[in-house]
């Protein structure tokens, strides 16, 4: 096989008519990608799948903590502040809490002020009455089962004789209040008429209490909020930091995290995190190895091209570079399409499961780029040893 006479344009035979004047590396590359469209497409699909899977899992993984902490909000408050004396926290405690918490960097903080007093019913039984901000409670304590929330009540409506305040009555307390609609409670000689607006069921201490609007409570007892229930999302360390900054803001108060919630939350999040990490590794490995197998098989299949080019005078290094660049171009294209598809998949999974969106994370691009390039490079180099030992003449003869 003496092809020496055609050395001026070594690859013109392979690229078909019309014969080009000069053969450049990029031209061979373009030809190779376009000419074998089916094969390039299947390699692109494989690398797109690997990039998409990696993107979806990494995006979910990156957003997992925020999502899980958000889920744990349904447990309600995780920090409780108790005022040092009956004087309470005074004016604007919510703003002070929000300001103190803001210094630790929390975005969403929920605060519900409460105040408690032991009053007596008409029949002389003691009952705990709590002043509460019902709007805050509704946001914070998701698990309260309430048949009807009390309407808004304004103390300023009738200064002389205020209308009966609407009350939310715990299901146990309800059994001890005589009338089903109107009750009068007494605290330190002052009476307050209440209109029962709804019933509350929690299975906890709340069942034995009567909740009334804070404004009515303060007007009746002269007490302001003595307990602040605060919810800050985040890890145990962030909750600790928040406790410290709240303690700084309210020096005399007792600031305590609800320990079982904080510990349980970080434990479950750690576990889920580890599980997710294992899943990401496992799936990435599976897809990576399968894609590697597919790609290297398809390169191995091109032994004949390889032999021909070698026979036409291409050096081994030159040809490997060609395969490598070809694989890298496909890998890059795979990263682009895979990132789009994977981000969409992560968005869909988040929306379906957590009912909140997960936006694409640009920071995962370097990782998937690295992954795809590694797979493509390995797929190009893996057959190199097989190809090196090839005898072009033997192969071209048709063995």
């Amino acid at each position, binding site marked *: 096989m003496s092809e020496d006479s055609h050395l001026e344009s070594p690859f013109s035979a392979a690229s078909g008519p019309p014969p080009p004047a000069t053969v450049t590396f990029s031209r061979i590359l373009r030809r190779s990608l376009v000419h074998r469209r089916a094969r390039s497409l*299947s390699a692109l699909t494989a690398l797109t799948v690997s990039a998409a899977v990696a993107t979806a899992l990494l995006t979910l993984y990156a957003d997992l903590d925020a999502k899980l902490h958000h889920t744990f909000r349904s447990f309600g408050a995780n920090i409780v502040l108790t005022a040092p004396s009956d004087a309470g926290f005074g004016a604007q405690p919510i703003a002070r809490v929000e300001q103190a918490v803001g210094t630790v960097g929390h975005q969403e903080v929920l605060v519900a002020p409460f105040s408690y007093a032991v009053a007596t019913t008409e029949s002389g039984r003691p009952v705990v009455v709590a002043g509460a901000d019902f709007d805050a409670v509704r946001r914070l304590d998701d698990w309260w089962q309430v048949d009807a929330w009390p309407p808004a009540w304004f103390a300023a409506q009738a200064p002389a004789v205020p209308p009966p305040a609407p009350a939310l009555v715990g299901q146990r307390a309800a059994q001890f209040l005589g009338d089903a609609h109107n009750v009068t409670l007494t605290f330190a000689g002052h009476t307050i008429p209440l209109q029962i607006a709804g019933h509350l069921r929690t*299975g906890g201490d709340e069942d034995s209490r009567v909740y009334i609007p804070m404004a009515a409570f303060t007007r009746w007892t002269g007490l302001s909020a003595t307990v602040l229930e605060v919810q800050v999302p985040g890890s145990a360390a962030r909750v600790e930091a928040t406790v410290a900054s709240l303690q700084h803001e309210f020096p005399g108060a007792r600031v305590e995290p609800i320990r079982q919630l904080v510990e349980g939350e970080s434990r479950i999040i750690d576990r*889920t995190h580890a599980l997710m990490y294992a899943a990401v590794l496992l*799936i990435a490995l599976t897809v990576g190895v399968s*894609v590697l197998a597919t790609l290297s*098989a398809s390169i191995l299949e091109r032994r004949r091209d390889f032999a021909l080019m070698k026979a036409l005078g291409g050096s081994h290094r030159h040809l490997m570079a060609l395969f490598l660049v070809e694989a890298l171009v496909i890998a890059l294209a795979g990263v682009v399409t895979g990132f789009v598809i994977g981000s969409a998949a992560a968005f869909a999974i988040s929306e379906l499961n957590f009912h909140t969106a997960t936006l694409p994370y640009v920071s995962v691009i370097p990782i998937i780029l690295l992954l795809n390039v590694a797979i493509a490079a390995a797929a190009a180099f893996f057959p190199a040893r097989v190809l090196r030992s090839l005898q072009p003449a033997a192969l071209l003869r048709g063995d």
Partner: protein
Amino acid sequence: MFFRLLLESFVRQRRRKLLAGVAILLGATAVTAMLAIATTIGDRIHSELSVFGANIVVTPKAANLDVKIGGADIQPATGNAYLHESDLAKLQTIFWANNITGISPELIVHTDATLNQHSASTDRQGIPVDAVGLWFDRSFANHLTTGAPELHSWWKLEGKWPAEPHQVVVGSALAARFHVHAGDFVTIPNYQAPGDQRNLAAPVYTITGIVSTGDATDNKLLLPLATTQQLNNTPDAVSRVEISAITMPEDALARRNPDTMSPKDHEIWYCRAYANSIAANIQESLPGSDAQQVRRVEQSEGVILDRISGLMWLISAAALLAAGFAVSAAMATAILERQAEIGLMRSLGAAKSSIALLFYAEAGLLAILAGSIGYFLGSGLAAWLGARIFAGAATAAPATSHLMEPLAIFNPVLLPAVVGLALAVAIGGSTPSIRAALRLDPSTVLRSDA
């Protein structure tokens, strides 16, 4: 002839078969592991969630109203009704007995104790303090060791829980106030009838440990239940029982009022492990009791359980999809490589159908082999991961983990599912390439410049 071809193909083309086989194997491993984790994640997370405490609380029906603020009794109720400790044994035989993973009864006695006094004393000027009677590591039924420490896994104890009637554990705040440590003593006066004017010596209790709970219990004394029953002169009495039970998340049926259901719906409701129906079942079995689900724990657990297992299922689905893609691509490549072989067979007169059959048989055999191995590898991997990640899941739910043990590693339902999926993917993945190969003209293929 057919079997010989099949056999030869496996023996001669070991590299190619290995490639496709490894792809199926890894895919099956990943899918099995993910599915095995997704199916058991509910139980695992549930036992993790038990750190939040009991999800059902039982109190006496005729009790006075609690006057509690921040976990502390403001006005001790008098003349209260009690539950009977001996009735708790009935919980072993109720319909939902197997779902109960922990029971913690308590009896609170208001007493005047003297801390850090080393000898028996007739001095009644102690400080008013709540003494809580509890179970400590009580064996209940034959497989369950339960009590207050098991249900309150966030309690931190320095020392030991009481094992004898005259031993006591002191809350950390109380211990700090009176500078007492494990090994010190507490005197608690015995019960005296209201008119009794005698000045009796108060017995001495040994402190076996200091407990930190992070709530009002830090200011209390923790004693064995039987001891507080004596102190209160109410044998067998219990003022409250906390129960931890395995429940299923609420759905539309659980939110309906059971009293207004039709008999048929009520039966369905009763036979589902909702917190409500378990509470109703407990209430029926304990006379004079009122059982309530603790909504803060129960409702939030349901949400978290849903989210985490939902996430795992969706990721399993993603794994399935990705593994399916990867495996079918590998299968397609494996067949494309063999176009020359197909051409040769056709030129020798083989029917298209028998060639297709041969290739499908190869793919099927490979899928069954690699799928089965993948199933075992994946199950092992899932068990290993589960054990590693959820290691030291503590005392939670001993009953279930006991029952789940043989099923935990190899879930027999997954085997046919995984092998079936592997078959479907392998055959589905090879179909386009087999068809493409058969469509080609044998002579072109054999000239091999296609």
